């Protein structure tokens, strides 16, 4: 049984950034993170490569999904006080608006942090946080620092 009375380990932006710095795909997308207090915001600066529909033009739905997934992973990393990167089990994405060719933001909320599974909800927005372009909920497998291969 884990010690529930222990003070949670706070992760700083440096540690979080260092973790994502080592993930080539996060660099490929260009995702950045901002941490104010305990509030984490992921930022996806716009670039032409992210377009999925050049007519409108609109961001690729997969890119918006991937941004929200990375945001969920970062939020779990924070909630756990910085351990190994959790693995995605499943995600469900609602597309609410087409993503415009501008910067996109995302914030996640860990609904439940269990011993092995985390339930997470994420929203992504551009102009107005109250008017999200997409929402995700998903389940993630937590990896402990030791044991499990």
């Amino acid at each position, binding site marked *: 049984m884990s010690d529930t009375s222990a003070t949670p380990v706070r992760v700083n932006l440096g540690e979080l950034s260092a973790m994502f710095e*080592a993930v*080539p*795909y996060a660099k490929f997308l260009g995702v950045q993170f901002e941490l104010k207090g305990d509030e984490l915001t992921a930022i996806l600066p716009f670039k032409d490569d992210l377009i999925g529909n050049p*007519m*409108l033009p609109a961001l*690729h739905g997969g890119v918006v999904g991937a941004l929200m997934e990375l945001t969920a992973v970062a939020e779990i990393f924070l909630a756990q006080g910085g351990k190994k990167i959790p693995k995605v089990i499943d995600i469900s*994405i609602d*597309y609410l608006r*087409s993503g415009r060719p501008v910067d996109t933001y995302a914030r996640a909320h860990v609904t439940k942090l269990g011993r092995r599974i985390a339930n997470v909800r994420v929203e992504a927005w551009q*102009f107005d946080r109250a008017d999200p372009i997409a929402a995700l909920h998903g389940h993630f497998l937590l990896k402990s620092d030791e044991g499990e291969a």
Partner: protein
Amino acid sequence: MSDDTPLWQRMATAGAMMIQGTPQARALGMRVIAITEARAVVEVDWREDLVGDPETGVIASGVVTTLLDNTCGVAAFAALSEPMSTATLDLRIDYMRPAKKGATIRAEAHCYRMTKTVAFVRAFAFDGQDETDPVAAAQAAFMMGTSGRMGQNRRPPK
């Protein structure tokens, strides 16, 4: 090709163009392998800059997400008789296991039902020839005939 050639046949002929015209698909190096009626097969190769877990070298799940979304969209389009604008309504993905390091990921999508307004699509992603051992499965719904106008997203929403 005559005007009554089915849309999917016209798409199959223009397969490479469908990727060339989509910047993110091009950035990931996607390749259309086959387009048949209501079905699409698209591949993406493993690449160092697409790795999601630096410890294992496994390709990022986000790449699989984008590949599945894209392949489902092409399959929905291949179920139409005339091109129309579409929008993804929702996308659900189960990641059964990590893909093998270095393996090409192949997505196979089937639009199994098309109503007047919605296309229902199922897809699987594989990292080998074994059809019983997919790395991921997807279920997607697309709105058909949305009122997308060229360049409409260049302005912020009202």
